[in-house]
């Protein structure tokens, strides 16, 4: 029942890329794909900014003395690094870029439920980023990304309010994205696209969106309280006025721990897609993987107290939070086991996205298991606020979230741009990232275990070897990031034209042309198959806008 669409020679195929070439057509677009691209450019920029801070941090730590920057500057560097990476890169990264671009296509819809809100969310994000950038250029902030009072409220004389306001505003963009996705998944699925036919990326996005709408408002009100405390001294976090600084920690981590799952759940969705495609097997235990996303989102809301083991929290609360933190390991392990079972006897090909996905599984495993060390009440007292914690969360956020972001970038690059990237270079870059990452952060586990505290710009001379290794790893990692930047940009002009389905994958996004037409499909797809149901290629019908050709990319 395939309908061959023959492109009319004279008229170039309309794609979302050439449907309007003016700047205005991009800045006022309501097309979810273009909004995804706007986010892609913005968050990649902030990744670069956060990366520059990281570089300066690693350079300072090359020697035990403080010779590159002052203590005050160093405090600002790690604060800005954390804020930029967490709030302006990791949280919007996969949901706002790939979620926006792919989610409506994956469920067979023409757009998200609220295209105007979607565009608004980008402007809100950029407004927040503007405030944060103003604070950055005016002199920065030095409280750590956690804004703990009383330092942030009473003592820090840096730009706490401007930065806090930036995060407050950017938070609303996160809420709008989450709201949009939830409603889109509920109401916009194509005929036949039942809940259990949804790609696992969509399930992961759904779980992420739940956290975004439930957690982010709490962060917003918390930052508002910090601003009020700082300006008029209302006393809510000030013990001299009857308040309690620990209340801030509870409120802050009620969002910021689940926020870790905002960063990593979409990555898990990406990995599920990639593992199934490059093993050419349906994902093992689809429903378990789907529900484990929801379980992580829900249980993730009940573990924030493990950040307060040393903050005068009651021992019984600590025990409960420890137990619940261990409970998160269960759904996480379900995912890792199911991915591994999917690989078993699959016909695996090691394309670049797969290398990133396999890297994710290994690094997430290390990051997750060291998380259990930290969830143990006794051990946590020893390694609390040391490099062990730093290494742990970088294994989750860089080894997990960032590797999946790069994997997603390569996997869907042909779909988004209509061009293939150079596979050899991409595999090489993936290996460089993996080696560089491990060399950067594995020594930090040892540093932390030996007692090196985080957030110090000088250290005892016996730690120097490990710090030098870490800095060396960071430079290799930087090369691993610069390489894709070069060859992906190169491929925009010079890469081979991508077919609709370069990976012989199964999702609906591969049933439309690369790049997709503005309305995603020529007609509403009717879904009669399950996710990851691999079929002979000739049966897969393309319901996009015809065959790829060079004119469809440039519109000339």
């Amino acid at each position, binding site marked *: 029942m395939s309908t061959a669409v023959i492109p009319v020679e004279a008229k170039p195929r309309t794609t979302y890329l050439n449907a309007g070439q003016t700047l205005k057509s991009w800045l006022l677009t309501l097309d979810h794909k273009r909004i995804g691209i706007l986010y892609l450019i913005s968050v990649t920029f902030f990744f670069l900014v956060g990366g520059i801070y990281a570089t300066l941090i690693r350079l300072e730590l090359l020697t035990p003395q403080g010779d590159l920057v002052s203590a005050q500057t160093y405090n600002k560097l790690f604060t800005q690094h954390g804020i930029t990476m967490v709030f302006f890169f990791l949280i919007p990264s996969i949901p706002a870029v790939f979620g926006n671009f792919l989610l409506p296509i994956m469920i067979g819809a023409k757009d998200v439920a609220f295209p105007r809100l979607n565009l608004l969310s980008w402007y809100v994000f950029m407004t927040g980023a503007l405030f944060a950038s103003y604070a950055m250029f005016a002199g920065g902030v030095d409280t750590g990304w956690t804004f703990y009072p009383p330092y942030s409220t009473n003592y820090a004389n840096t730009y706490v309010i401007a930065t806090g306001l930036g995060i407050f505003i950017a938070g609303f963009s996160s809420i709008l994205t989450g709201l949009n996705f939830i409603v889109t998944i509920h*109401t*916009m699925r194509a005929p036949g696209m039942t809940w259990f036919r949804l790609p696992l990326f969509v399930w992961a996005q759904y779980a992420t969106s739940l956290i975004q709408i439930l957690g982010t408002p709490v962060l917003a009100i918390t930052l508002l309280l910090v601003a009020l405390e700082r300006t008029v001294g209302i006393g809510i976090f000030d013990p001299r006025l009857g308040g309690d600084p620990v209340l801030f920690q509870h409120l802050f981590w009620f969002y910021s721990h689940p926020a870790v799952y905002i960063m990593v759940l979409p990555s898990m969705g990406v990995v599920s897609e990639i593992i199934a495609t490059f093993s050419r097997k349906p994902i093992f235990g689809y429903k378990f993987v789907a529900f484990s996303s929801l379980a992580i989102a829900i249980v993730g809301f009940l573990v924030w107290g493990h950040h307060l083991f040393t903050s005068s929290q009651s021992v019984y609360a600590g025990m409960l939070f420890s137990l619940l933190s261990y409970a998160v390991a269960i759904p996480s392990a379900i995912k890792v086991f199911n991915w591994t079972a999917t690989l078993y006897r699959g016909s695996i090909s090691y394309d670049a996205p797969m290398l990133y996905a396999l890297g994710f599984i290994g690094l997430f495993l290390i990051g997750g298991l060291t998380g259990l060390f930290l969830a143990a009440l006794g051990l946590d007292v020893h390694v609390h606020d040391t490099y062990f914690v730093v290494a742990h969360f970088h294994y989750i956020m860089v080894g997990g979230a960032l590797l999946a972001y790069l994997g997603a970038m390569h996997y869907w690059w042909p779909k988004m741009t209509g061009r293939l990237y150079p596979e050899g270079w991409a595999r090489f870059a993936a290996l460089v990232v993996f080696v560089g990452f491990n060399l950067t952060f594995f020594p930090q586990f040892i540093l932390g275990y030996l007692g090196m505290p985080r957030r110090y710009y000088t250290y005892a001379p016996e730690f120097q070897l490990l710090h030098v290794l870490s800095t060396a790893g960071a430079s290799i990692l930087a090369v691993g990031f610069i390489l894709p930047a070069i060859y992906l940009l190169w491929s925009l002009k010079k890469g081979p034209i991508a077919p609709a389905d370069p990976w012989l994958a199964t999702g609906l996004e591969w049933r439309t042309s690369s790049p997709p037409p503005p309305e995603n499909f020529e007609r509403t797809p009717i879904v009669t198959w399950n996710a990851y149901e691999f079929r002979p290629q000739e049966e897969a019908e393309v319901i996009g806008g015809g065959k790829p050709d060079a004119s469809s990319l440039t519109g000339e």
Partner: protein
Amino acid sequence: MAQSEVTAQHAIAHHPALAHHFENMEQQREASTLGMWVFLITEIMFFGGLFLAYSIYRSWYPQVFAEASHHLDILLGGINTVVLITSSLTMALAVYHSQVGNRGKLVLFLILTMLLGLTFLGIKVIEYSHKFHDGLIPGIHFHYEGPHPQQAQIFFWLYFAMTGLHALHMIIGVSILAFLIYFAWRGRYSPEYHSPVEISGLYWHFVDIVWIFLFPLLYLVGFHVKG
């Protein structure tokens, strides 16, 4: 927009209010209603932070909170409660008349709702100015006669933060009503297309319910304690 060319080809008597990416009015209505419910959940979490702070400090300083609450005007607060509940009734009636397509009654009840909302805000202004004259504005300008003035200050700033945030939502609600009245007057809403009225109604009721919690927590908490 470029998309319109594609849809125009198979546009068979679409409702003018149907957005291009929806299949039909029913899907569009479902999406906007669910969207509003999800938004209200985020609102609950937003207010939730303040309610949590209230719970903690009240359980720490129950006596001070009870005494401080005597400085609030139960009569004005009570009148405002009645005003808001009545406005919820008129809003519900407006939604009903938008569903049956009764334009005159729709406009009437929307205007009544807006007037009640403005009444609430007016009374709130009177209350706030009383607090200002009594020197009960926390932070810069706070003179409290009773015991533990610092703990009482926490009560008062919770009072201002919670009722202030609520009043902000009322102002937004009244502005939404102004738009609704204008479009209802122009005859934009019909039994086929009335979801803007419906979801604004949901929002209005939500703001009303927040007040239903705020009134006893702030005004009545000291009612049974001799002041």
